[in-house]
C-alpha cells in the first residue's frame, strides 16, 4: 500500500505569515523609532516612514488575501 503524505500547506503558510508579520512589525517599529528619535529632520523621517508603512501594508494586504484563498 503506497504511503501518502499530505503537507499541511495552510497551517505552514499561516504560521510563516504570522512569524513574518511579528518580525516585520518589530523591526519596522524599531527602525521608525530610531529614524524619528535620532534623525536630524523629523519631516524627512515622517515622509520616509509613511512611504515605507504604505508599501509594507499594501504587500501585507496582498499576502493576507493570498493566505485567505488557501
Amino acid at each position, binding site marked *: 500500500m503506497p504511503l501518502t503524505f499530505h503537507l499541511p*500547506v495552510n497551517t505552514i*503558510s499561516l504560521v*510563516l*505569515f504570522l512569524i*513574518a508579520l511579528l518580525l*516585520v512589525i518589530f*523591526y*519596522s517599529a*524599531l*527602525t521608525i523609532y*530610531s*529614524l524619528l528619535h*535620532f*534623525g*536630524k*529632520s*523629523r*519631516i*524627512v523621517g*515622517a515622509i*520616509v516612514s509613511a512611504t*515605507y508603512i504604505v*508599501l*509594507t501594508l499594501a*504587500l*501585507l494586504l*496582498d*499576502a493576507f488575501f*493570498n*493566505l485567505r*484563498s*488557501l
Partner: protein
Amino acid sequence: MSYFQRKYIFPGQQENEKVCLIIRQHWIVLAGQMLFAVLFVAIYFIVSYVLNTYLPKDLLTRYGNVVGLAKDLYLIFLLLGIFLAWVIYYLNVQIVTNQRVVDITQNGLLQHTVSELELSHIEDVTTEVKGFLPTMFNYGDVYIQTAAEKERFVFSHISRPADVQKLILDLYEQLPKQ
C-alpha cells in the same frame, strides 16, 4: 515650535553655536548597498519567470496562492532591508560647527554614538582619496589628529574631503587666540 521643528540639530548644541557643515557619507556608499537590493529584486523576477514558465499548470493552479504569499513575504523583507540600510546611512552624520566637530555614528538600530572634538584641540587635518571610484567621484577620508583622549577622528567616504579640510582649518584659524 511644532513637533516637526527641532530647536537643535544635534544633542548638546549650544545656544550660540553655529552649524557650518553637515556631512554624510558619499551617495556611492549607499548605492553600493542598494546594488545588493537590486540583485535580490533580479532574483525575484528570475524565480517568478521560471515558476510561471516551467512549473506544470495544475501545480501552478493548486499552489498559486502559496507562491503569491511567498513572493509577498520576500518583497516585504526586501523592503525592510532597504529601509534599514537607508536609515543607518541617514543617521550616520558628521557636523562641523564654529566651536567643534561632532561625529554621530549609528552602528545599529539601538546603538548611537556621539563623539565631539573642540576645534582648539585639533593638531592636524589630513585627507586621503585612494582608488579609481573615489578619484572619479571626489570622495575620501578626512583624518583629524587631536590632542584629546580620542587621538584621531575619521570622516570616512565623504564627498569633497579637501573642501572639508579647508573649512575645518579656516574655522580653527578663526578661533580667538588664547
